[in-house]
């Protein structure tokens, strides 16, 4: 527990902005996939984790600079995201109709477990995989310490979120994505193929997740289980913001969550702060007045 002083409060605020920006990016990435495709993409954990491992490997083996390793890692994550959609989710959705949500969740859970353990097997002799090439310098501004990595994390996260927001709001591509989110069948009528849009959404969402993963692993290290908590945070942020909301709104919810979590260290031992998010989720679910159903568009069962 930190003492309740102004200095501590400011320092925790800075930490909250850094972690909150990461949650924001994750929430935007996962929320985009969930709201547009309706797929419960649990294997987001895998595309996340593999991005960090690949970035670390190419950084170490070929001495790529961090920014290039980050892009390579996140691209590999995007490729896996697209692959899962094309090879597993789409065929499942086509044949299971009204039950697609559950079927895809189960399969995606399976993919996540396979991926996590294959990573553990491949890197079985590597205790932890550090992403190097980044001096974690700190700057003191008054009583508050900022790290260079923290600043980069915040800037990168918000550039990506704002860019996605701008694309969705102001471009033809964004209109297409929004159209598919609202009604894929109708979008087909006006000449937009939802299948292609789904692939694009998986690519973007997985790429964003990959970026978050590489930055996270730069701070700590890559490990096979590193994707689980991010998925959870991503889901909570997307859920609290509401599916299909504008990326900036989702991002602000993520930021808010990070701040609350960080500030709670003023009142409780740090090992409990991670439970604060669960507490918020529970209270939200328990107190929300309307029934939380129908937030996901469902495939309409064919009648007649």
């Amino acid at each position, binding site marked *: 527990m930190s003492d309740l002083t102004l200095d501590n409060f400011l320092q925790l605020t800075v930490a909250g902005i850094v972690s909150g920006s990461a949650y924001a990016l994750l929430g935007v990435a996962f929320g985009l996939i969930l709201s547009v495709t309706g797929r419960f993409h649990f294997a987001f954990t895998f595309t996340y984790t593999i991005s960090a491992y690949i970035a670390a490997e190419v950084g170490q083996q070929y001495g790529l600079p961090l920014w290039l390793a980050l892009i390579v890692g996140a691209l590999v994550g995007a490729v896996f995201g697209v692959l899962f959609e094309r090879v597993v989710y789409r065929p499942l959705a086509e044949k299971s109709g009204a039950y697609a*949500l559950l079927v895809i969740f*189960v399969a995606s*859970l399976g993919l996540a477990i396979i991926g996590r353990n294959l990573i553990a097997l491949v890197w079985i002799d590597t205790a932890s995989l550090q992403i190097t090439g980044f001096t974690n310098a700190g700057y003191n501004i008054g009583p508050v310490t900022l790290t260079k990595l923290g600043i980069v994390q915040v800037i990168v996260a918000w550039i990506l979120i704002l860019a996605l927001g701008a694309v969705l709001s102001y471009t033809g591509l964004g209109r297409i994505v929004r159209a598919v989110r609202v009604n894929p069948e109708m979008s087909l009528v006006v000449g937009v193929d939802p299948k292609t849009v789904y692939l694009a959404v998986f690519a973007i969402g997985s790429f964003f997740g990959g970026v978050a993963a590489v930055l996270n692993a730069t701070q700590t290290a890559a490990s096979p289980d590193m994707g689980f908590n991010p998925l959870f945070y991503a889901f909570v942020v997307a859920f609290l913001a509401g599916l299909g909301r504008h990326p900036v709104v989702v991002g602000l919810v993520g930021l808010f969550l990070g701040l609350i979590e960080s500030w709670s260290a003023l009142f409780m031992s740090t090992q409990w702060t991670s439970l604060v998010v669960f507490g918020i989720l529970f209270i939200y679910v328990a107190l929300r007045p309307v029934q939380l159903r129908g937030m996901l568009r469902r495939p309409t069962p064919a009648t007649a």
Partner: protein
Amino acid sequence: MELEISYLNTILIFAIFALSLNLLLGYAGQVSVAHAAFGAVGGYAVAYLFLEHGVGLLPGMVIAMIVSAAIGLVVGIPALRLSTEFLILLTLAVQTIIITLVTTSSAFGGTYGLQNVAGFTLFGQDLLLPSDFLPLFIVLTVLVYLVVRRMGESPYGRVLRGIREDEVACRSLGKNVFSYKLTVFAVTAAMAGLAGAMLVTQNQLASPSLFSFDQSTAIVAMVILGGTGNLLGSILGATVLVLLTPFFQNVLNFTPEKASLWRLVAYGVVLVVVMLVRPQGILPEGTTPITLVKRLLRRGPAAGEPTQSAAPDVRVPEQVNRGALVDPASIDLDEDAHALTELAHHGALPDTVVSAGRTGEIVLKVEGLTKRFGGITAAENLNLELRRGTITALVGPNGAGKTTVFNLLTGAIRPDTGRVTLHGNDISGMRPDQVANAGMVRSFQDVRVFPRLSSLQNVLLAIQGQPGESAAGLFLRPAATAKVERESRAKALEWLSFVGMEAYAEVPAGALAFGQQKLVALARVLATEADVVLLDEPASGIDQQWVEVMLGLIEQLRDKGRTICIVEHNLHVVGRLADHTYFMELGRITAQGSFEELTGEKRLAEAYFGTA
């Protein structure tokens, strides 16, 4: 030998985990990825009570189950309002919270857990070796199997499947869906707690890794592999997946570390492959070893092809045929059903329907009913009356709020103001299931049959007064349960034969043509024997031949003294059926009278009825 027995014990433990999750997931349709965490609650309870307070095995297990059930209830309450994707999120949170709590609190030994949980005795005998535990574990597993079977394969389980298929429809038939869900959450959590307690005593250790998220997914994989909604499948799934560990270690000679990673990979492969290749699992719902053997014998060399259903003209739409989790080939026509059908009267209204009361008296009275959604007024100061032995029609353009009226009357939507009285009792503010039990039942425009249940089961769910539909009746009144079930089946068949669908009694409702589904839905509404019947577009979207059948049936009902209200667009239908007609526009009733009077009004004729 002891090693083999320890694997057998582990199979028994995971069989309990899988059986109970199957009741929750396969029957009631509630997804949980927190089942291992409920096991942790039970396991840590037994270990803590034993180490700190010297509580013995059996009392410890009982307390463990109670504590787990209580936590199951705590989770169940918010879960009631969640759709599948958010239920997954919530149970994911529960799994993480519980494991984080036991890992971070020193009272529970942190990461290492509670160790040396050894020295239990049972009836004066020391329990040390796996073989000492085996008899107890066999007894417990058999008990759990019997309880789960009783709950799943019974009228109670039929309601659970109904909830899985369509909660709204279930509620409209008078089922208190909330209480069913809560009970199932609590009971299955208690069983998981028991399994957790067994796991801890067998390992002499309660540690977070015994109950990790990986274990929860392993339990899901067991249920999915064996087949959701099939209890023997769960035992099979538990056996196969537990035996993967010795397979990798002893047959493939992997190191323990590699073996445990490969085992988890195998779990994942099971989940993906089963979903892609055989979503209904090894043993699909409704398959028992007997039906399996029967089907193989009957089919002979043609095995692999779908069985010919004895009912003619069954269209099997995509999502039922190839769709998840149920195998249409498993549909087995029950010979008894045909015999019973022969006895049933064809097309005649069952005698059970005798409405007391005088024709023309007011049965339902609506006064000043108003509902606004934001700025939109869906219903404005509605006043209407339904009279016994008459058919009242609500007509009006699309969006006039006709279906909203049904939703308001049956409690699906709460009115802002206004009163609804049924037989003189105020029913405003009641839940849909309470309204149904008070004697008013509705049908749905989009039929809402339970697609994976047979037509007979669809109708059976509507039969009132079944002791087997409550957990108490199920276990305390087995004789009454069995007797009423026989009677209910006969009644349900009568209703099916009333609508001419008795030949399709054993066919999943989702496999029927739309018109046939409407008839089954009508039989379902009628089988509630509700006095007041609200029919939402009974004749829309079906072929002309079915329309005639449907109208004839509705007229028979009226003549028996039921009170009927229909929403209908087909003016031919309204003209033939309606004794009294209300005309709605933009949430208001703007005209009423006989159909002829309304069509005679110049303004309405131009605006709605055309030049007819």
